[in-house]
C-alpha cells in the first residue's frame, strides 16, 4: 500500500519554505496522494501547474498541490516532476478537484485523463504551446460557447440566463435544464471577467517598492480587497522573512472584519429584497454604507483600497479615529440588529427561506466548499480558527455554523458573524497594541514556496507563490472562495424551483471576477 500523502511536506500558513523541501512526485503519485488526503479528511485548497523554467536546472511544467487539514490545523503540499501531455484525473472520485484540473488543462494544455466534464474554465488561450482541446492558437475563443449538459425529453426545456443580467451585476451564463418549474440541472459558465491576473503577477519581482502587485491583489475581487491584499502582503512578508507588528496585524484584522460586516449586511438586505421584504432590504442597504464608512475612517477609502501594505498597513490609527470607530460601530450595531431582527420575526420570511436551496453536509464536503456556504451546511471551516495568521493566532472568534444548509442557514450564519465581528472589533479597538504600523520588508528570497490563507467574508482566500532564482514570482496562484463554491450553488439548485434561483444565488453571493481572475 503506497501512502503518497505521507510524503507531502507540512506547511504553515504564511511561512515560506524552500522549494526543494517539497517532495517531487510523479503525476500519478501526486494524484493518488491527493485522493488519499481527501479520504483522510483533508481538502484541496490549491492545485495548479507551474513553469519550472526559472529555477536552477528546472524545465517543463510541473503540478503543485496544497491540501488543508482543518482538524490538525496544518497544510501539506507536494509537487510533481515535469509533466508531459497529460496527467491522471481524479475528478470522478473527488469532485472538489474537477475545476482545478480543468484550470490546469486550460492554462498549460495538459490533459487530465479521464476527466468527466473537461471544459474550459475561463475561455482563454493556453499559456504554453499546447492546447488541451487542440484549438487554433490564433483563433478567438468565444466565452461560454461549447457543450452544455443536456437533459433530453419532450417535457424538458432549457432556460439560458445571462451573461447580461437584469440587475447591475457581473456577467455569467447559467444554463438550466428544467421540467416545468423544477430544475434538473444547472450548469454555470463563467470567464467573462478574465483579465489575466495570475499571468500578470508571474515574473514580477515580489514585494519591492513601487510594485503594482498590491494594487492588482486588491482588485482580485473588488468586494474582498482587504482579504486579498492581506494574503498578498503576507506573501511578501514571508518571502522576505519580515513580519508585521501586532498593531498592524490588529488593524488588518479590524479592516477585514469591517469588510465582512459591510458585505454580510448588504447580503442580508439583498436576500430580503429578493423575496420582496421591503424593510430589511432598505435598511440594510443604508447600514452597509455605514460599515463602509467605518472602513473609510480606518484608511480613507470605503472599500479598503490602499490600506494593507507589505509589512503592515499604510495608515496608523490615531486616538480620534479610534473613538470615532467605536462610537459609530455602536450606532451601526443598534441599527443592524433592528433591521435584521425584522427578518427572523416575520413568519412569511422564514417560510420563504426555509428549505430553499438545501445543500447537505455530505455534498459540501464532497465539493470542498468553504466560507459561509460550508459553515451553513454544518462544516466548521474557518481559516481564522483552523489555519490562523496575523492576529488570529492570538485572538479567537467563535466559528458560526448552522446545520440545515438552506438559504435560511446561510442568512443566519451571516447574522451570527455580524454579531461576532462587531464584538471582535470592539475588543480589539479597546486594547490596541503598540508598535509601528509598518515594518520594512526586504528583498524576497529565491526558490521559495509560500501559502497564505485569509478568511475573507465570502470564505477562505488562498494565495500561493513560488519564487524563481531571481526572487521574482515564478508562479502566483490565487484561489478565491468563489472558485470552490460556484459548484455548490449549481448543486443547491437541483430539484429546486427555478424561481428560487435568484434567492439561492444571493445566499451564496459569489464573485465572478474572483473566479475569472
Amino acid at each position, binding site marked *: 500500500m503506497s501512502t503518497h500523502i505521507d510524503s507531502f511536506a507540512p506547511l504553515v500558513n504564511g511561512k515560506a519554505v524552500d522549494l526543494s523541501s517539497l517532495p517531487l512526485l510523479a503525476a500519478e503519485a501526486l494524484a493518488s496522494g491527493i485522493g488519499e488526503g481527501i479520504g483522510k479528511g483533508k481538502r484541496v485548497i490549491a492545485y495548479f501547474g507551474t513553469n519550472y523554467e526559472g529555477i536552477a536546472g528546472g524545465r517543463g511544467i510541473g503540478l503543485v498541490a496544497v491540501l488543508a487539514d482543518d482538524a490538525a490545523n496544518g497544510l501539506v503540499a507536494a509537487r510533481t516532476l515535469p509533466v508531459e501531455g497529460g496527467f491522471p484525473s481524479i475528478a470522478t472520485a473527488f469532485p472538489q478537484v474537477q475545476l482545478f484540473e480543468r484550470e490546469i488543462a486550460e492554462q498549460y494544455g495538459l490533459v487530465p485523463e479521464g476527466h468527466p466534464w473537461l471544459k474550459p474554465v475561463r475561455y482563454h488561450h493556453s499559456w504554453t504551446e499546447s492546447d488541451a482541446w487542440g484549438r487554433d492558437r490564433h483563433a478567438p475563443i468565444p466565452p461560454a460557447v461549447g457543450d452544455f449538459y443536456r437533459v433530453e425529453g419532450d417535457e424538458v426545456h432549457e432556460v439560458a440566463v445571462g451573461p447580461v443580467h437584469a440587475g447591475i451585476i457581473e456577467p455569467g451564463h447559467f444554463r438550466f435544464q428544467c421540467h416545468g418549474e423544477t430544475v434538473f440541472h444547472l450548469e454555470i459558465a463563467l470567464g467573462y471577467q478574465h483579465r489575466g491576473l495570475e499571468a500578470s503577477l508571474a515574473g514580477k519581482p515580489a514585494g519591492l517598492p513601487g510594485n503594482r502587485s498590491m494594487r492588482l491583489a486588491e482588485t482580485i475581487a473588488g468586494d474582498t480587497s482587504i482579504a486579498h491584499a492581506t494574503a498578498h502582503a503576507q506573501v511578501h512578508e514571508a518571502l522576505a522573512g519580515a513580519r508585521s507588528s501586532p498593531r498592524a496585524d490588529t488593524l488588518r484584522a479590524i479592516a477585514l472584519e469591517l469588510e465582512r460586516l459591510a458585505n454580510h449586511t448588504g447580503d442580508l438586505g439583498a436576500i430580503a429584497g429578493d423575496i420582496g421584504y421591503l424593510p430589511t432590504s432598505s435598511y440594510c442597504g443604508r447600514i452597509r454604507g455605514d460599515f463602509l464608512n467605518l472602513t473609510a475612517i480606518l484608511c480613507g477609502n470605503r472599500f479598503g483600497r490602499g490600506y494593507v501594505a507589505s509589512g503592515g498597513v499604510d495608515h496608523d490609527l490615531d486616538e480620534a479615529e479610534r473613538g470615532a470607530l467605536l462610537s459609530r460601530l455602536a450606532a451601526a450595531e443598534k441599527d443592524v440588529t433592528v433591521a435584521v431582527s425584522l427578518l427572523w420575526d416575520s413568519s412569511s420570511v422564514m417560510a420563504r427561506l426555509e428549505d430553499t436551496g438545501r445543500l447537505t453536509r455530505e455534498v459540501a464536503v464532497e465539493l470542498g466548499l468553504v466560507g459561509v456556504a460550508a459553515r451553513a451546511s454544518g462544516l466548521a471551516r474557518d481559516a481564522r480558527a483552523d489555519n490562523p495568521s496575523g492576529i488570529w493566532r492570538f485572538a479567537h472568534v467563535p466559528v458560526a455554523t448552522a446545520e440545515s444548509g438552506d438559504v435560511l442557514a446561510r442568512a443566519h450564519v451571516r447574522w451570527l458573524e455580524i454579531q461576532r465581528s462587531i464584538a471582535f472589533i470592539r475588543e480589539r479597538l479597546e486594547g490596541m497594541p503598540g508598535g509601528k504600523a509598518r515594518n520594512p520588508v526586504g528583498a524576497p528570497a529565491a526558490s521559495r514556496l509560500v501559502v497564505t490563507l485569509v478568511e475573507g467574508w465570502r470564505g477562505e482566500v488562498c494565495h500561493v507563490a513560488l519564487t524563481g532564482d531571481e526572487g521574482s514570482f515564478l508562479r502566483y496562484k490565487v484561489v478565491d472562495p468563489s472558485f470552490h463554491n460556484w459548484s455548490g450553488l449549481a448543486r443547491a439548485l437541483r430539484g429546486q424551483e427555478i*424561481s*428560487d434561483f*435568484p434567492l439561492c444565488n444571493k445566499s451564496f453571493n459569489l464573485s465572478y471576477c474572483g473566479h475569472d481572475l
Partner: protein
Amino acid sequence: MIDTIIRFAFLLLVPPLMLGLINRVKSVFAGRKGPPLLQSWRDIVKLAGKGIVLSSTTSWVFIAGPAVTLAAILVAGSLVPYGPFRSPFGFAGDLVLFAYLFGLARFFTTSAALDTGSAFEGMGASREVTFAILSEPAFFLSLLALARLSGALDLNGLLLGPEGGFSTATAAPLVLVGLALGIVLLAETSRIPVDDPNTHLELTMIHEVMVLDHSGPLLGAVLYSAALRLFVLSSVLLHVVMPFRIGVAALDWILFAAGLAGISIVIGVIESVMARFRMGRVPWFLTGALLCAGSAFVLLVR
C-alpha cells in the same frame, strides 16, 4: 349625466394614482420619501412619446397583446358600478362578459408573451395561466354567490345588493366572498405575496416577465392596463367590504375615492410587511380563495 362623466373620469384618470399611493405607502415603510403620486402617470406619458422596438421574431400578436388587453379592461371597467353609481351599460348576465373580458385580456397577454419565443416569457405565460385556473373559478364563484345573495344577474344589481343593502344574516358568506375577492385582487394585479411588481429577477416574475419585450407606447399600455385592472377589481371588492352609501352624490364620490385609497394603502402595507410566497405555494393561496368563494356559495344554496 354628470355622474356618468365622473364615472369615466374616474375610470380613465384614477388608476395610476392608486399605483402611486401604493408606492408611497411602501416608501414610508422602507424609510424613504418615495416617488410622487403622479409618477405612474408620468411614466405612461413618457412611454407614450417613445419609439417601439420590435423583435424580428414577433408577429402582429405581439402588438395586439397590449392593445386588446387595454381595450378589454376598459370595457370591463365600464360595466361595474362605482360606489352607488350604476353602470350605464349593465344588462342581465353581464357578469359573464365581465369575467371573460379579463379572460380575453389574459389570453392576449400570454399570446403576446409566447409570440416573442423567449424562454422567460414562455415561463411567465405558463405561470400566469396555471394560476388563472384557480383564480378564475374563485372570481366566478364569488360573483355567483353575490348573484344568489342579491337575486340579480347583472353587475349593477348583484354588486349594489338588494334594496336597503345586504341583510346581516348574510354576513358570513359576504365575509368569505370578501376574502376570496381580496386574494383574487392580489393575484390578478400581480402584487406581493403572489408576484413582486418591483423585482428585476426574470426567473421569479409572473406578470412582469411576460411584458419584458414590450417597449414605448406598448409598454405604456401594459402599465396603464395593470393600473386599470387594479382599479376595476378594487371597485368590485369595495362593494363587498364597504357597502355604505350616503345618498348625496358628491359625498358618495368622495367615499368611493376614499375606499380606493384605503385598498391601495392596505395593499401597500401587505407588500411592506410580508415576503413573497415561493412559487409553489401560490396555488395554495389561490385555492384558499376558491374555497372561500365555494363555501360562501354553499352557505347560500344549502
